[in-house]
């Protein structure tokens, strides 16, 4: 069978419509319908595995043909996103099982996947913009099906999405006006000879749009509340798909459309990168450090994940904007890896909320005995998040660090490494407060999430482990994508990286083997010794005091309160507050402007007459003077 790109794009949408129709019959019909249509894209994508298609025309706008195409990078990401959509859908079925919104959510879901494919396949600035806007629109509606505060989140999200969209729209129209075409290739050709201000302005406008969706630091304000309040399956999509779409576009625009050569031509180079890329590196680094530090002091499980997600996209931005083969490989690999491990975290937290009904960390605890599989998934995911071998997060962060070393940027490296340590803090907080410690009495009857709900976490956990131990598998796709972006792909083997300029050799299986060896030795010592006796959680050292069930002795509220004290001076500088002040100012001014319409007839008439007189005078006098 030969599937066109448009067909891949329409497959989920078609499936969604069918499923929506099928929901009238029976829920199972709907579910299976849609499931089939979510699996189909894998088969359809299969034939594009090693192809680069550049123009598949599908629409004509303003005399220009809009086209779709696929390349190594978008192939990799569409494969990844298809998987995440599939898993998120399975999760969604359970999450919405009691809600009447499920039919609509599935419909929106299908359109979202179609739009995501659209952005990935777009080969011109108008198509990508159209699909990007559709993503924002659907996400807006999906968020609204979440928790209590989700409606505020919706508004915050859409405000920023609109700012980003209009910023991009400005660039799109401007470039079309100047270049006379929408196509990536033509735009790129125009830009290579365009005056410097135009290049800079359009670049900044585009990048604002992308980075809003990627929730990079000064533009992240919408992200924490949105990620935290959206339904869990949507949070997965936000973090693992939509954010990555923004970063994908960033990659495409920086390396493929604008091009590093162009930047090097028009601006000085700092630390072997063009100035603007250097600025972006710092933005990425600030995102890492601030995102991490704020994540540490959160009290809400999903807020931690949200801030963590912000911080991790800082890593991606940092890696990508280094502009070296090593850095870009690290950034792209981290896109893949972050999608996977953050997906697990959201799935697990979602599962915990599904069972316990709260995402407040201080109310949870001790669930390890009740939900062991969730615990293992989350354990793998937090190891990956903290960038500890042998899970996948390590490899990509490693590449980014090495790239920073290669570029001789000790300060950025320091920030990035410190962010790694910080991430260890917040992920520990997460797993500790949910799974370890005291099991509250009310959760004694909690069970493990249903088997189908475990599938998403387990699949992604396996992937995280596989991609961690054998980094060659994702590197196969990443190096192809890198070649497409015009870099010399870095050398890699199935097990890691050979010694090459700027990169010390790395062999993850050997690390894992040594780790396993160490475990075996320690476990031998441990299990050969006298057996252990399990004690009740209340049989605990408490300075001789006798604990009872109704006492909450677990330490889970204000876990890092002393850390809060340390960073308190910086809270005064919070970006949120700057925006709030700005919004307050705008509102005041707007309110005064609004008062032009007083509702008082005398005012209106006199105003009209005054202005008429003035205009008439200008005209009459001006006419005489001319």
């Amino acid at each position, binding site marked *: 069978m030969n599937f066109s790109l448009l067909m891949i794009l329409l497959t989920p949408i078609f499936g969604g419509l069918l499923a929506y129709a099928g929901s009238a019959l029976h829920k199972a019909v709907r579910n299976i319908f849609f499931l089939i249509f979510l699996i189909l894209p894998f088969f359809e994508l299969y034939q594009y595995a090693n192809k680069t298609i550049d123009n598949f025309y599908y629409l004509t706008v303003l005399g220009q043909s809009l086209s779709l195409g696929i390349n190594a990078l978008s192939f990799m990401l569409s494969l990844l996103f298809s998987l995440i959509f599939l898993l998120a859908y399975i999760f969604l079925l359970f999450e919405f099982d009691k809600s009447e919104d499920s039919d609509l959510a599935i419909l929106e879901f299908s359109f979202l996947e179609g739009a995501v494919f659209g952005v990935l396949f777009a080969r011109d600035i108008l198509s990508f913009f159209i699909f990007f806007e559709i993503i924002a629109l659907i996400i807006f509606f999906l968020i609204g099906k979440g928790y209590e505060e989700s409606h505020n989140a919706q508004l915050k999200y859409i405000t920023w999405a609109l700012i980003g969209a209009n910023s991009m729209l400005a660039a799109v129209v401007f470039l079309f006006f100047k270049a006379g075409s929408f196509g990536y290739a033509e735009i790129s050709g125009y830009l290579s000879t365009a005056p410097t201000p135009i290049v800079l302005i359009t670049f900044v406008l585009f990048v604002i749009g992308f980075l809003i969706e990627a929730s990079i630091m000064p533009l992240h304000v919408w992200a924490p509340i949105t990620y935290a309040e959206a339904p869990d399956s949507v949070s997965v999509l936000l973090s693992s798909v939509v954010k990555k779409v923004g970063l994908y576009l960033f990659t495409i625009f920086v390396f493929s459309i604008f091009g590093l050569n162009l930047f090097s031509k028009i601006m000085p180079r700092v630390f072997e990168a063009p100035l603007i890329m250097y600025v972006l590196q710092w933005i990425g680094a600030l995102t890492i450090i601030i995102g991490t530090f704020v994540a540490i002091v959160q009290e809400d499980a999903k807020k931690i994940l949200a801030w963590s997600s912000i911080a991790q996209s800082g890593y991606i931005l940092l890696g990508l904007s280094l502009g070296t083969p090593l850095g870009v490989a690290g950034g792209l690999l981290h896109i893949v890896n972050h999608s996977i491990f953050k997906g697990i975290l959201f799935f697990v937290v979602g599962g915990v909320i599904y069972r316990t009904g709260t995402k407040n960390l201080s109310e949870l605890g001790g669930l390890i005995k009740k939900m062991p599989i969730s615990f293992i998934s989350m354990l793998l995911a937090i190891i990956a998040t903290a960038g500890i071998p042998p899970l996948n997060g390590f490899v990509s962060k490693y590449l980014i660090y090495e790239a920073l070393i290669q570029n001789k940027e000790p300060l950025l490296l320091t920030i990035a490494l410190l962010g790694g340590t910080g991430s260890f803090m917040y992920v520990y907080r997460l797993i500790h407060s949910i799974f370890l410690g005291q099991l509250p009495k009310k959760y004694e009857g909690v069970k493990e999430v249903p088997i189908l709900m475990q599938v998403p976490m387990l699949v992604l956990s396996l992937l995280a482990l596989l991609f961690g131990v054998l980094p060659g598998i994702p590197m196969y796709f990443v190096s192809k994508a890198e070649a497409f972006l015009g870099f010399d792909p870095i050398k890699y083997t199935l097990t890691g990286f050979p010694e090459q300029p700027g990169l010390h050799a790395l062999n993850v299986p050997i690390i894992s083997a040594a780790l396993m060896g160490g475990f075996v030795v320690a476990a031998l010592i441990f299990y050969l010794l006298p057996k252990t006796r399990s004690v009740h959680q209340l049989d605990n*050292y408490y300075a001789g005091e006798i604990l009872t069930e109704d006492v909450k002795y677990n330490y889970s509220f204000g876990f890092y309160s002393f850390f809060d004290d340390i960073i308190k001076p910086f809270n005064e500088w919070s970006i949120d507050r700057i925006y709030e002040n700005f919004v307050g100012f705008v509102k005041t001014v707007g309110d005064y402007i609004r008062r032009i319409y007083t509702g008082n007839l005398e005012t209106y008439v006199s105003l009209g007459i005054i202005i008429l007189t003035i205009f008439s005078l200008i005209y009459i006098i001006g006419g005489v003077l001319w």
Partner: protein
Amino acid sequence: MELQETLEEGYVEILDHLRKRSLWMLHYCTACGAVELPPTITSRFDAERFGIAPFVTSRQSDILLVTGYINIKTLKRLVTVYEQMLPPKYVIGFGSCTINGGIYWDSYAVVKRLDLYLPVDVYIAGCMPTPMAVLEGFRTLMKLIDEGKANGWRKYIENYDYYKANQRKVLKW
């Protein structure tokens, strides 16, 4: 069969021999006798040279040092702590109060005989016992361990009902 028993015995003997060189006492100062501990463990008398060091929690410690009178409220905690400790574990009754109530012999709130409630391995008499006496007590305990006679914790398990009954009588559990 015999060989194995001999080996096991030898093994236990070696272990006991080593074990006596590392005794961690619970830093659980129940009464005024605790005042004698600082001199015991600091420069002058230096208990650490015998491997005796104060430790913090019940799980980590080997010696429960009952430093003086035990009133009923304290006994409850004391029993909890003792039961939390990991065997082999030893109890040292410290001062006259643990033997016969000492100067609190007629108090309604004080438990007079410790060994009714916990298996005491060594008593150190005196009010207060001096650091020398304390060290002597420790030495005695070490000797008992070496000889395999410090079996208070076994006694507690074997006569669990007896101890529980006594404890219940006082504590009204």
